[in-house]
């Protein structure tokens, strides 16, 4: 029943849009109502997405089980632009992950944003984000994907700037937006290139073309990759993600950890047939490199959210690496697992921040295990999953990727990933040690309290159920058909006890995690690494890319801009505009200013009549 399923997709896609419109138009003042309304809608969508996910078992509609639906919006020459859905196995999985995580984050936000005066705007923003991200998931052509892509960018911008009266939030939102523009420029050029080469933007048609052609031009993949680099915060466009933490914590959890940044990975998996080997190679190298580097940088952050942001960067690097190694299914699986445990980590951080009266500095926390037991338990569980402790969610995907890297051609990629695994365990241990163990290091932390149920329930559900049992559940609740690619990939790189990935994982776990616990317990109220080796700490903390960009903008771009501005001033402004625009009216105005501009109605009427007479003469004489 294809029509039935596509109408299901209609609901999934347009419910959040309706919710956003309703909240933004009518519920700006009624914050509580907007909050519960958006949350209810999010849960309904999650239910619908689950239904869609389960629908594969019985009702396989086409040979591949894909749901397709398409209407043509416009036709320019031979190019047809349309609006439609293409729901394959990946899309089902992604739909479910996004909507499920989002639903619980909505619930968390109800508690977290309780005292915020602009709740209506916040929840409207969440709903419009839901609409956009789900749109990316279901879109069946590049152009609609781009439209949703931009909408996602917009909602991210809007939500980062939720506290727009704070300078850093406003600046961070601008940074995120502009950095994404750089990537999107490449994206839209890539779409244009697809149009000119293949004459279509439909994924299905493009796939046929790509299968027919022997080689795909490198440029197509490289340009499309630019969009991925921006949205998924890959090197060198990763600079915006850590600043984006200026938004409210649920936003960081939903957009900047679980879903939006993963959209880039999803998109790359969707167009993987358009990526030339060179492009894949670049993604693999840069992803692995970034994974290692970002993991280490997370060690030099005292802000709990920024530290988590670097962790997200590291995991995005791992996903990118899996993509580049030619395992988009593994990347998607890691995306799903990461969405669950990273959302839990961020929500846990939000709960901690909320409990500590908006203190974000980890050095000022400590000993929260006793004061916030539920939060602590879920946070620790998610952290362990993050470190890929065997049989926790992260282990299934991350170790599979490391395994794939080992079987790949490049030792460097494997080495980077191993380093990333070690770094992950290091910063995870550090975070647990600083936040939850030891003694309270500040007034706020000593008065911490557990959060209300709206915040702990999502933590428990997302954290305990999914981080711990995610792997089992992946097998249990997701029917065979929809997860086939993942299972296939798992079988291909079947990991066993003696596999290098397991050795690397366990080794780094023991050395990193417990080492970090011990190391960071040695100094109180300060960062141990900073005390022991300030130079290393500074090396990691310093934001090299920001400095590079600043140098580029200052020294290169501004020079060019100044030169162009000078030309503009001289030629356009000076000669073309000033001479003509200034000289002619000056002369005419001097001659006629007195007669034109007398302030009398009759005078104006006279000129109107004269003008129309002239016009009439012109038309008749013509």
């Amino acid at each position, binding site marked *: 029943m294809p029509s039935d399923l596509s109408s299901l997709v209609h609901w999934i896609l347009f419910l959040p849009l309706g919710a956003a419109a309703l909240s933004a138009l009518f519920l700006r003042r009624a914050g509580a109502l907007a909050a519960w309304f958006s949350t209810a809608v999010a849960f309904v969508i999650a239910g619908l997405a689950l239904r869609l996910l389960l629908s594969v078992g019985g009702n396989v509609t086409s040979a591949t089980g894909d749901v397709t639906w398409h209407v043509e919006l416009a036709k320019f020459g031979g190019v047809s632009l349309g609006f439609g859905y293409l729901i394959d196995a990946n899309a089902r999985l992604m739909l479910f992950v996004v909507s499920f995580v989002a639903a619980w984050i909505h619930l968390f936000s109800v508690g977290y944003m309780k005292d915020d005066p602009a709740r209506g705007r916040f929840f409207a923003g969440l709903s419009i984000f839901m609409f956009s991200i789900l749109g990316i998931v279901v879109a069946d052509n590049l152009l609609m994907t781009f439209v949703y892509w931009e909408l996602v960018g917009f909602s991210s911008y809007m939500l980062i700037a939720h506290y727009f009266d704070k300078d850093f939030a406003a600046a961070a939102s601008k940074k995120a937006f502009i950095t994404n523009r750089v990537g999107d420029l490449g994206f839209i050029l890539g779409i244009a290139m697809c149009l000119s080469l293949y004459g279509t933007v439909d994924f299905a048609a493009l796939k046929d073309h790509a299968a027919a052609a022997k080689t795909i031009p490198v440029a197509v993949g490289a340009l499309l990759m630019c969009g991925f680099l921006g949205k998924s915060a890959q090197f060198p466009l990763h600079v915006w993600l850590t600043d984006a933490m200026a938004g409210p914590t649920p936003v960081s959890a939903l957009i900047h950890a679980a879903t939006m940044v993963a959209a880039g990975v999803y998109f790359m998996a969707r167009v993987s047939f358009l990526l030339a080997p060179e492009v894949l190679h670049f993604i693999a190298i840069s992803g692995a490199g970034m994974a290692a580097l970002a993991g280490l940088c997370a060690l030099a952050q005292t802000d709990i959210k920024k530290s988590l942001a670097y962790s997200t960067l590291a995991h995005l690097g791992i996903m990118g690496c899996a993509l580049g190694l030619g395992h988009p299914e593994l990347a998607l699986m890691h995306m799903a697992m990461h969405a669950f445990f990273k959302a839990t980590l961020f929500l846990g951080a939000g709960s901690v921040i909320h409990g500590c009266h908006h203190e974000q500095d980890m050095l000022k926390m400590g000993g929260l295990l006793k004061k916030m037991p539920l939060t602590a338990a879920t946070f620790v569980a998610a952290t362990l999953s993050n470190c890929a402790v065997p049989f926790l969610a992260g282990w299934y995907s991350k170790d599979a990727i490391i395994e794939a890297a080992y079987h790949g051609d490049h030792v460097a990629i494997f080495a980077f990933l191993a380093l990333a695994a070690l770094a992950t365990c290091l910063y995870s241990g550090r975070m647990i040690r600083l936040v939850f163990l030891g003694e309270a290091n500040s007034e706020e932390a000593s008065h911490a309290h557990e959060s209300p149920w709206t915040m702990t329930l999502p933590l428990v559900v997302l954290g305990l159920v999914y981080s711990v049992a995610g792997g089992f559940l992946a097998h249990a609740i997701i029917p065979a058909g929809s997860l086939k690619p993942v299972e296939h990939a798992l079988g291909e790189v079947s990991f066993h006890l003696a596999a290098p990935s397991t050795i690397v994982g366990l080794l780094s776990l023991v050395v990193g995690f417990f080492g970090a616990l011990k190391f960071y317990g040695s100094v109180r109220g300060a960062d141990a690494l900073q005390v022991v080796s300030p130079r290393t700490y500074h090396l990691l903390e310093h934001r090299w890319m920001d400095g590079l960009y600043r140098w580029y903008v200052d020294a290169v771009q501004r020079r060019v801009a100044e030169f162009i501005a000078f030309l503009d001033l001289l030629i356009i402004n000076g000669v073309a505009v000033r001479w003509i625009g200034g000289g002619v009216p000056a002369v005419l105005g001097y001659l006629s200013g007195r007669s034109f501009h*007398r*302030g009398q109605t*009759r005078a104006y009427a006279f000129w109107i009549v004269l003008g129309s007479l002239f016009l009439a003469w012109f038309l008749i004489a013509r």
Partner: protein
Amino acid sequence: MENTSLAHHLILAGLLFVLGLTGVLLRRNLLVVYMCLELMLAAATLALVAFSRFNRTMDGAVLVFFVITVAAAEVAVGLALIVALFRKRGTVQSDALTSLRD
């Protein structure tokens, strides 16, 4: 109606129009200016009816119907504006209304 051609009606309409125009240009009293504007509209409708009659189509006549409707609406709003102006400035002489220049 033996010997009135289209040109006769058009000339009458044209003269009326020009007369109204002269009034708009010369009169100071905004109310009279407004009446002259209406006169111009009436002249235009006259031309429309004449064309309609001589071309044996109904369209021009229907257009006149709409012109009358629009003119009625316009008069209502325009007069309300003039009254509002009078309440604010105490005059309806266009000479006194030169704040665009000042």
